[in-house]
């Protein structure tokens, strides 16, 4: 190429325009261009006037030769090109023929053979894009001339380029472990090459593993597949990645990088011996997908007996919503399953696993789990708390003393906990589990905090608490009672006693005051103090009329306690309305039932004493609700002039609780907020004194037991990390938000998303003590479930997360192969080639409603039938109806979902043959069963197939030519039908069909209908298409490079397809493609290197201004910024040559080899503008051959 051409203005961003026509002609005439035009038999010559085109080419400036040939791609055609290059010293070549997709490489190699750089060549596509698509011959000829003119102009600006050669990584990725993928992997491994075989299911085998027999030889599918699966498992060259999916692919032929997600199996592949001991104890039952849902399996399972690898796995579909909702993440489904099975001790064990105070929770928890229970989408949520109560009562009643598991390790560090309430006890529990030496300091004489002092006995019998405290004591926690902070010891003292960390969990024990006159009268008392006195056994007397001020649970507790102490009239006075009351609904209704009165929108403003100085009543004022305040509740505003007097002998205040932390007041070290609560670090709840943490109500204000336990447990975790010197800044987290749950994650396959097939059972309600008995005694109001009710209720659990995490399997597994905390693993593989053998899915027969699939039990798909016929299937190979009896007549309906404009236009190729096979198997097992084959056309195209059909014709199978129209469970009343019915149901199925050979409509009564469903592209084909950057044909299957000549190649070099991923096919064809794909891979591996197109981008460093626009658009991060020169530079090894940076570059510095602006623009201009050789120049070439 001449130096002048390199200097063409197109090197910059300057445009070539036809005002520069002279200029263009000048560049054209410097070259000696050869134009070769192909007839392609009549494919091109039949439409395009070749002579005219040749003569036109000759008239173009720079064209030194123009000629034609019948088949340019043939040897003589290619030789013509080579000869002319040598003979005439051609400097550029244009071939005008088919698409470059077909023969660009052919002609480029011919050009190279003649000694010219192969990139000084351009193709004009006058077959696919002209002669085949244009009717008018004149117009086609004109279009061909235009395209040749454009190619001639463009080729002038081509530059000699060198192809890049890169080594091929000899490892191969095979995706899909069906028969095609297995064959590919085995062939490659036999050839000595490393293969990664990725299968998304837990076992390889694919659809073939489900089949009973194979047509036409009637080989048992398992018998011919199993040896191959075993070979895969044993091959040293094959790394089997089951239960894994490809997530990301980058790179190019010879050098792909692949990310594979290995999903957690929760069972160790090395140590599992497939002994099935775990299956015996698993309480979960879900439909077995492998048996088409016709049988059930456990949550821990293997797909089938011959599974490869023959190892188990656990099906977990995310934590159940109840577990997520629980502040302490109890394994709710686990203990429900154990209760349902009658294994109560195990249930208690599971409850104890995460809950430090399960007995208390069983009686008084506010159960957010029930709010979130998935069952509420069916009917009503489960009575979860009541079931826990049943389990804990059972343990107490039967004197089952649980022994805490030994701590994970023994640690010598000491931790002090101040306060033995829910938070403090929870902290003690966690730290004792972790092996720390824990001491609890409690100010009062009893352990349990509010649970012991504030909880009235009718809600939980007082002696129940000791079962929880005993358990924690057994864990090694030491309790020191009557030890008040500041009075008996100080924080300093604790530090001096070698405590490494201190947790303050002293709660909120000071009642808020109204600030009204007369509040200090002896009969006006804090409700909490009143409850404490009652709980500590003091003889407390109340007057006839008792008023309780406040609207929370404490107010209700005080009111109900006062009733039981003999008050005649108890009124709760609340300043807002019922809707704003914070008390729980259950507590409120219980109080109302027991006769507690409510006075809403009322506030006492003065307490009045009689002449003896005792309370006689209070002046109240009515309120009305104004704008919402910061808590979102409407602010009460006094109504002027509404004062009135209320009699009262006793008044109890229950209007809020605050921490009693006077001892910190004025402390330099301990920073407090306006409620006197310590200010803590978010995430660790460490106070302003290092090593001193706070937990529970002290920080949050009055809360619930289970929430206090959450913070106690989480702060304990922070303390653990603090002591170990780890990052402890994100241990304490907010309560879960319902929006974190994506409901679909929890859909158990047993219950479809709409829950339409779940039988409804109402929630069992808690039996209660009669009202009249309640208010006379301290007996617990809730009586608890009986055993039958509890088990019945527990069985309502949907097991929506599949595995219930009862850990029974862990106990049963002798080799200790189970790990419930297993995590997904992402592997990064480097491979040179990829074979996609991702198979198909069968047509969803439910879409064609007229055939009754899913509506009638005895309408099956062919895949259902395979399992029914299979000795390893749900019936052990007995072909029975849903009621267990043998069918007397079976209809097999062909072409369900295939050859049907409504669903798929194509023929699925295998259905005729497998339908014949099914007919044969039925006749073999039930010889007197009538079998009807309803077909459109019999397509028996393969080796031995037609013979098999003929054999079936002699096995007394009825062949009816006609597509099945519909299936009903009642006969039609239509008298034109051959089988006249009476319209009544008779337990039979009636198939309507038009017999097109007899020309009559028919109705056939049968016992079973088998729908021969077609094959569709796999469910994740769309996802795979995007991951592997492939094309799919209209039918959804992956598109091969050429339907005849390159059936296993794709448009992307190095990525091959095999088996049904490419289109429906039978087993022999799938195996052949699998082998063909691996042969193609081996050819590349053996070549050792691949040729990469040199059409990468580059940046002209003299023009680049360093704006970095190219860096932002590059999809491959192939452009980096050179800091010294302040310019962008393309890493050509990473560049894939899309050219996006070139069109984005504002200065014209980014360029693309082979697709430079000047090349595209000259082609564009030449299409639009006619130009000719200067008349005086004579053509030197152009003869016919």
């Amino acid at each position, binding site marked *: 190429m001449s130096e002048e051409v390199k200097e063409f203005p197109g090197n910059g961003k300057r445009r070539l325009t036809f005002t520069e026509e002279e200029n263009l002609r000048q560049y054209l005439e410097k070259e000696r261009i050869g134009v070769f035009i192909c007839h392609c038999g009549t494919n091109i010559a039949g439409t395009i006037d070749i002579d005219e085109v040749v003569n036109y080419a000759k008239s173009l400036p720079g064209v030194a030769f123009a000629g034609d040939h019948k088949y340019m791609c043939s040897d003589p055609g290619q030789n013509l090109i080579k000869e002319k290059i040598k003979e005439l010293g051609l400097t550029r070549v244009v071939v005008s023929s088919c698409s470059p997709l077909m023969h660009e490489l052919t002609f480029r190699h011919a050009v190279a053979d003649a000694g010219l750089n192969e990139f000084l060549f351009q193709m004009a596509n006058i077959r696919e894009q002209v002669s*085949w698509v244009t009717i008018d011959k004149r117009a086609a000829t004109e*279009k061909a001339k235009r395209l040749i003119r454009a190619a001639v102009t463009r080729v002038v600006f081509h530059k000699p380029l060198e192809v890049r050669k890169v080594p091929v990584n000899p490892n191969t990725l095979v995706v899909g472990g069906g028969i095609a993928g297995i064959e590919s992997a085995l062939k490659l491994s036999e050839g000595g090459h490393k293969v990664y075989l990725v299968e998304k299911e837990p076992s390889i085998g694919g659809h073939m593993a489900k089949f009973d027999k194979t047509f036409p030889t009637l080989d048992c599918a398992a018998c011919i597949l199993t040896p191959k699966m075993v070979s895969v498992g044993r091959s040293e060259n094959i790394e089997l990645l089951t239960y894994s999916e490809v997530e990301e692919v980058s790179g190019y032929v010879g050098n792909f990088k692949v990310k594979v997600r290995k999903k957690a199996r929760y069972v160790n592949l090395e140590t599992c011996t497939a002994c099935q001991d775990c299956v015996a104890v698993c309480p979960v039952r879900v439909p077995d997908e492998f048996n088409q849902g016709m049988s059930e399996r456990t949550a821990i399972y293997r797909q089938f007996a011959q599974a490869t690898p023959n190892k188990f796995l656990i099906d977990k579909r995310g934590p159940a919503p109840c577990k997520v909702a629980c502040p302490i993440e109890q394994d709710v489904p686990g203990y429900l399953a154990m209760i349902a099975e009658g294994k109560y001790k195990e249930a208690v064990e599971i409850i104890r696993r995460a809950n430090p105070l399960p007995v208390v929770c069983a009686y008084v928890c506010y159960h957010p789990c029930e709010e979130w229970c998935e069952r509420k989408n069916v009917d009503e949520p489960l009575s979860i708390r009541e079931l826990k109560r049943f389990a804990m009562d059972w343990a107490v009643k039967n004197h089952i003393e649980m022994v805490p598991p030994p701590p994970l390790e023994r640690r010598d560090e000491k931790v002090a906990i101040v306060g033995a309430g829910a938070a403090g006890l929870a902290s003690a529990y966690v730290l004792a589990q972790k092996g720390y030496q824990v001491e609890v300091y409690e100010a009062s004489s009893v352990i349990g905090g509010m649970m012991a002092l504030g909880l009235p006995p009718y809600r939980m019998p007082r002696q129940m608490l000791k079962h929880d405290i005993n358990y924690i004591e057994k864990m090694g926690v030491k309790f020191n009672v009557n030890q008040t902070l500041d009075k008996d010891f100080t924080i300093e003292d604790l530090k001096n006693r070698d405590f490494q960390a201190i947790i303050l969990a002293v709660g909120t024990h000071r009642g808020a005051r109204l600030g009204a006159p007369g509040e200090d009268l002896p009969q006006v008392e804090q409700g909490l103090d009143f409850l404490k006195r009652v709980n500590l056994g003091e003889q407390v007397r109340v007057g006839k009329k008792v008023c309780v001020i406040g609207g929370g649970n404490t107010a209700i507790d005080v009111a109900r306690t006062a009733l039981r102490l003999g008050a005649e009239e108890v009124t709760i006075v609340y300043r807002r309305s019922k809707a704003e009351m914070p008390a729980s609904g259950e507590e409120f209704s219980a109080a109302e039932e027991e006769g507690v009165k409510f006075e809403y929108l009322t506030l006492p403003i003065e307490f009045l004493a009689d002449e003896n100085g005792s309370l006689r009543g209070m002046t109240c004022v009515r309120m009305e609700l104004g704008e919402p305040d910061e808590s979102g509740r409407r602010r009460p505003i006094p109504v002027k002039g509404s004062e009135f007097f209320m009699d009262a002998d006793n008044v109890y205040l229950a209007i809020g609780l605050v921490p009693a932390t006077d001892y910190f007041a004025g402390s330099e070290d301990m920073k407090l907020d306006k409620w006197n609560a310590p200010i803590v670090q978010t995430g660790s709840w460490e106070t302003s004194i290092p090593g001193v943490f706070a937990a529970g109500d002290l920080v949050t204000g009055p809360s619930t037991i289970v929430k206090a336990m959450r913070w106690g447990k989480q702060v304990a975790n922070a303390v653990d990390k603090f002591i170990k010197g780890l990052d402890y800044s994100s241990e304490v987290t907010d309560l879960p938000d319902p929006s974190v749950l994506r409901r679909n994650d929890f859909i158990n396959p047993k219950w479809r998303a709409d829950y339409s097939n779940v039988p409804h059972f109402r929630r069992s309600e808690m039996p209660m003590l009669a009202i009249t008995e309640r208010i006379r005694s301290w007996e617990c109001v809730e009586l608890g479930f009986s055993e039958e009710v509890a088990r019945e209720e527990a069985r309502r659990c949907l097991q929506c997360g599949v595995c219930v995490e009862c850990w029974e399997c862990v106990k049963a597994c002798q080799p200790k192969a189970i790990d419930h905390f297993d995590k997904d693993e992402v592997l990064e593989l480097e491979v040179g080639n990829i074979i996609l053998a991702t198979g198909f899915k069968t047509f969803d027969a439910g879409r064609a409603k007229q055939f009754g699939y899913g509506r009638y039990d005895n309408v099956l798909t062919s895949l259902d039938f395979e399992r029914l016929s299979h000795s390893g299937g749900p019936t052990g190979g007995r072909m029975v109806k849903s009621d267990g009896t043998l069918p007397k007549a079976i209809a097999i309906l062909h072409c369900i979902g295939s050859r049907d404009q409504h669903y798929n236009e194509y023929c699925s190729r295998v259905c005729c043959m497998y339908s014949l096979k099914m007919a044969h198997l039925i006749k073999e097992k039930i010889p007197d069963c009538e079998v009807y084959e309803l077909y459109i056309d019999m397509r028996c195209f393969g080796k031995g197939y037609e013979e098999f059909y003929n054999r079936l014709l002699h096995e007394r199978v009825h062949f009816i030519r006609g597509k099945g129209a519909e299936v009903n469970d009642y006969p039609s009343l239509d008298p034109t039908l051959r089988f006249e019915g009476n319209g009544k149901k008779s337990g039979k199925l009636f198939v309507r069909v038009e017999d097109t050979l007899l020309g009559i409509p028919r109705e056939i009564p049968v016992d079973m209908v088998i729908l021969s469903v077609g094959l569709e592209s796999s469910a994740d084909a769309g996802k795979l298409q995007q991951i592997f950057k492939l094309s799919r044909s*209209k039918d959804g299957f992956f598109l091969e490079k050429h339907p005849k000549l390159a059936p296993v190649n794709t*448009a992307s070099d190095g990525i091959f397809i095999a088996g049904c991923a490419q289109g429906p096919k039978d087993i022999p064809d799938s195996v052949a493609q699998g082998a063909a794909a691996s042969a193609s891979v081996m050819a590349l591996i053996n070549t050792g290197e691949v040729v990469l197109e040199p059409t990468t981008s580059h940046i002209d460093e003299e023009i680049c201004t360093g704006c970095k626009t190219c860096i932002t658009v590059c999809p491959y991060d192939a452009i980096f910024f050179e800091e010294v020169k302040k310019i962008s530079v393309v890493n050509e090894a990473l560049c*894939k040559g899309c*050219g996006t940076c070139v069109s*984005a570059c504002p200065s014209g510095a980014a360029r693309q080899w082979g697709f430079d602006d000047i090349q*595209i623009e000259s082609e*564009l201009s030449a299409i639009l503008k006619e130009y000719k050789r200067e008349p005086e120049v004579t053509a030197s070439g152009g003869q016919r051959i």
Partner: protein
Amino acid sequence: MAEVTTIDATTKKPIEVSGNGFEPKIIGFLCWWCAYTGADLAGTARMKYPPNVSVIRVMCSGRVDPSFIVKALREGADGVLVAGCHPGDCHYINGNMKTAGRMPLLKRMLAQFGVEDERVRLEWISASEGDKFAEVVNDMTEKIRKLGPLNLSKNLEAK
């Protein structure tokens, strides 16, 4: 240009040609992996469409510099078709989306020069959508026939 007949891709019948014998010149920028292969498939399946579109291949629709389109219109094209892979299917991850971002801006600018919206068209055509390519060409040719010649350069000079 010679007389041509437009064939409806679905009915396979000639379409009544409107206008007064004007045949638009249309440039088609097709990406190599999807649209170009799709156009080839239209040929392999012998679908018919008018010869007005001349195809220029690019590796990716992201390579189509908006200035190419302006240049084509200035030098006498009556319409420009840009076709690439469907969103998500781009062989180069997302080059097609870069073009999808550029086209609306270019169209806004062209509208100010009086270039009708129908003259510049962005289409997603997969390698298996030969019929779609034929349909798009039929439709585009017909619409531009109705619009008449563009003559952008002459118009600009007149202004």
